[in-house]
C-alpha cells in the first residue's frame, strides 16, 4: 500500500513537472514565433563620426519601415533599438551591452569607427549576436569572430592597395603619411609602402599623431623634413582640418590625398579654398546606378549619398533577409548561417528587402545586391571587391577624377 502510494505520487510529480515546464516554455515559444523581431543599430550620432551616424540610422529605419509596411518577416514586425556609440569605444561598449542584455537584439548594425567595432565585436560573438559594420581596418575581420561579423566597407588592404595604384598613376615619387592614431594607421602605412615600392615610388616616412590635440605643428615639421611630393592624410575630419591648414601655413605646396570620409564637403566649407584646392580624395563608391541607391537617395532627400548610408541600408536588408531565409529564426547564429545564402550565389538578384522577402516566401533563392554594391562576403566577413571614386577639390567643391 505504501509502495503504491509512493509510485502514484512520483508519477503525479513527473506529470506535474512536465506540465509546469511546458507552461513555462509556452509563452516563450509563442513570443519567439509571433512577437516582434528585435534588431539594434549602433551608429556614431556624436563625435568624429557625428556627420554620418544620423543618415546611417535613418537608412536602417527606412528599410525596417518598408518591411513592416509590407507585412514584416513571416508576419512578424521588426523593432529597432537605436543607440549612439559617440565614436568612442567606451561609450560603444556600454551601448552594445544595453542592446544585447536589455533589448535582446539578434543583430547590431552600423558601427563606424574601427576602434568602436574592435571594442564591440567580442561582446557580440560571445553573446552570439550578429554584427554588421562599415569599419575598414584589416584587424577587424582577423578577430576570432566565429562568423558573427560581416562588413560592407572594403578593408584597408583592398582600399590602400587601390589608393597606392592611384598615387602611382599620379607619378608621385616621395610619399609621406600623416595618420591619426587608429587601428588602421599602421597596416595602412605598411600596405602603402609595399604598393609604392613595387611601382617605383617610395614611402619616405610617416607620423602617427594623437588626434585629440589642438595643434600638429611639430608633426608637420617632421613631415616636411622628409621633403615629400605627396602627403597621405590618413585621419578623421577634425584633425585633418587642422593638419591641412597647418600644412598650408607651413608653406607646403605638394600634393595631398585623403579618404573621402575625412576630407568631405563640410571640411571644404570650413576653410578657404586655397587651403584645400588640389586635394585628392578616395571614397568607396556605392552602386550609384542601382535602383536601391536611387530609392534610398529619394527617401533621404539627397542626390549624393554617403557610402555609409548605402551600406547601412544593405546591413538592415541583409539581416532581415537572412532571418527570413532561416525560416524566421531571429538569432545571431541563424543570421550568421544564412547571410551568405541570400547575399551571393546563383539566386535571383534583388536590390531591396521587400522584394527579397516575397521571393523567399515563394521558396526561391535570392542574391542580394544593394545600394552599396554586390555585398558578397569572404569566409572571414570581408567584401570581395569594390569600386573607389577619386575626386579632387577645386575652388571649395569636389570634382570627380575617376572611378577605379
Amino acid at each position, binding site marked *: 500500500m505504501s509502495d503504491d502510494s509512493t509510485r502514484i505520487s512520483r508519477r503525479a510529480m513527473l506529470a506535474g513537472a512536465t506540465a509546469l515546464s511546458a507552461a513555462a516554455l509556452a509563452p516563450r515559444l509563442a513570443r519567439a514565433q509571433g512577437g516582434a523581431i528585435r534588431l539594434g543599430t549602433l551608429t556614431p550620432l*556624436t*563625435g568624429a563620426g*557625428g*556627420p554620418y551616424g544620423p543618415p546611417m540610422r535613418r537608412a536602417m529605419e527606412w528599410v525596417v519601415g518598408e518591411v513592416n509596411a509590407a507585412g514584416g518577416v513571416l508576419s512578424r514586425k521588426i523593432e529597432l533599438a537605436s543607440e549612439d556609440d559617440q565614436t568612442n569605444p567606451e561609450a560603444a561598449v556600454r551601448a552594445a551591452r544595453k542592446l544585447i542584455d536589455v533589448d535582446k537584439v539578434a543583430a547590431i548594425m552600423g558601427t563606424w569607427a574601427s576602434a568602436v567595432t574592435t571594442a564591440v565585436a567580442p561582446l557580440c560573438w560571445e553573446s552570439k549576436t550578429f554584427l554588421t559594420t562599415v569599419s575598414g581596418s584589416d584587424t577587424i575581420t582577423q578577430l576570432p569572430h566565429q562568423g558573427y561579423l560581416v562588413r560592407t566597407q572594403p578593408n584597408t588592404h583592398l582600399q590602400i592597395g587601390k589608393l597606392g595604384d592611384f598615387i602611382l598613376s599620379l607619378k608621385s615619387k616621395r610619399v609621406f603619411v600623416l595618420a591619426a*592614431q587608429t587601428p588602421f594607421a599602421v597596416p595602412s602605412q605598411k600596405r602603402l609602402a609595399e604598393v609604392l615600392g613595387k611601382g617605383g615610388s617610395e614611402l619616405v616616412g610617416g*607620423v*602617427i*599623431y*594623437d588626434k*585629440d*590635440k*589642438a*595643434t*600638429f*605643428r*611639430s*608633426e608637420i*615639421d*617632421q613631415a616636411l623634413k622628409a621633403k615629400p611630393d605627396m602627403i597621405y592624410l590618413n585621419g578623421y*575630419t*577634425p584633425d585633418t*582640418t*587642422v593638419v591641412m*591648414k597647418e600644412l*598650408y*601655413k*607651413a*608653406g607646403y605646396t605638394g600634393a595631398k590625398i585623403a579618404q573621402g570620409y575625412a576630407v568631405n564637403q*563640410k*571640411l571644404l566649407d*570650413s*576653410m*578657404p579654398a*586655397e*587651403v584645400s584646392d588640389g586635394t585628392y580624395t578616395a571614397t568607396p563608391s556605392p552602386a550609384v546606378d542601382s535602383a536601391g541607391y536611387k530609392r534610398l537617395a529619394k527617401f533621404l532627400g539627397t542626390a549624393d549619398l554617403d557610402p555609409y548610408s548605402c551600406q547601412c541600408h544593405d546591413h538592415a536588408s541583409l539581416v532581415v533577409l537572412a532571418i527570413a531565409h532561416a525560416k524566421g529564426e531571429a538569432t545571431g547564429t541563424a543570421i550568421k548561417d544564412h547571410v551568405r545564402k541570400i547575399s551571393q550565389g546563383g539566386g535571383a538578384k534583388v536590390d531591396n528587402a521587400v522584394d527579397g522577402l516575397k521571393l523567399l516566401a515563394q521558396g526561391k533563392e535570392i542574391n542580394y545586391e544593394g545600394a552599396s554594391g554586390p555585398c558578397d562576403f569572404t569566409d572571414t566577413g570581408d567584401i570581395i571587391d569594390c569600386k573607389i571614386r577619386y575626386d579632387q577639390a577645386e575652388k571649395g567643391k569636389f570634382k570627380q577624377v575617376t572611378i577605379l
Partner: protein
Amino acid sequence: MSEVAQLLVNGLVAGTILAVPAIGFTAIYAVLRFPNFTVASHATIGAFAGYVANTAGGLPAWAAVGVAFLVAGAAGVVNDEIVLKPLRPAGALTAAIAAVALTIVLENVVRFIWGNDLRGYDLPIRRDWQWAGLRIGPQQVENLVIAVLAMAALFLFLAFTRTGKAMRAVADNPMLAGIKGINADMVARLVNFVGMGLAGVGGMLLGLDTSIDPLTGFRVILSVFAAAVVGGLGSIPGAVVGALTIGVAEELSLLSLAPAYRTAVGFAAILVVLTLRPRGLLGERAY
C-alpha cells in the same frame, strides 16, 4: 638644434594659450575650493560665441574674443548659480562630480544648437613667417598677444582694484574676509565670471588657429587640469608656469616619443610633480 628651437617656440605658443583657461580654472579653485571641470564646456561656449560674433556679426578676431569672454563668463555665473552653488555645501567632491555632469550637459546644449559639424572662423589663413630655419604663424603671434594681454589685465585687476583685492582675500581666508565685510557670494559670482570668461577666451584662441566643434573644450581639459596642478592648484602665476611647462614638455617629448603618446606627458607631469612637490611648482598660495 634648430629642431629643438622650433619645438620650444611651438611649446611656448601652445603653453601661453593653455595658460588662459588654466588661470580661469585655478582662480575658481582658489576661491571656491573645488575643481570646476565645466571650464571645458565654457571654453566651447566661448569659442562658439566668438564664432557667432565673428561670422554672423562680422567682428574682427580681437573683438570677437571680447564677446567670447562676456558670453562664457555670463554663462559661467548662471550655471554656477543654478547648478553648482546649491551643491557646494555638500563638499568639494560632490561639486566636482556635478561639474563633470554639467559640462557634458552644456556640451550637448552646444551640440543641440550648432550640431556636430566643424566650424572655422572667418579669417584669412596666412602662410607662416620663416626665419633662420624657424617658423611661426601670424595667427600664433596674434593669439600670443591676446593671451598675454588677457593675463596682464587679470594681474592688474587682482593687484590694484578693490574687487580684485577682495577676491584674493576670500581665497586666502574666507572667514577673515567675511568678518571684514566682504560679500562672499558676490566674490563667488565674480570669480566665476572672470574664470569662465577666461576659459571662453582660451577656447576661442584654440579655435582661431584650428577649428571648433562641441568637443573643443573637452579636448584640452586634461592639459588645463595638468597645468593647474603642476603649477600649484589655486596659484595664478602657478597656472601660467604650469601651462608653459606642459606646453613645452609636450612638444619636447616629440624628440624621443612618438606623437601618439603626447597626451601621456600631461599625466606624467602630474605624477612627477605630485610625488616630488605635492603643492605644485609654486605652491598653492603664491601670488
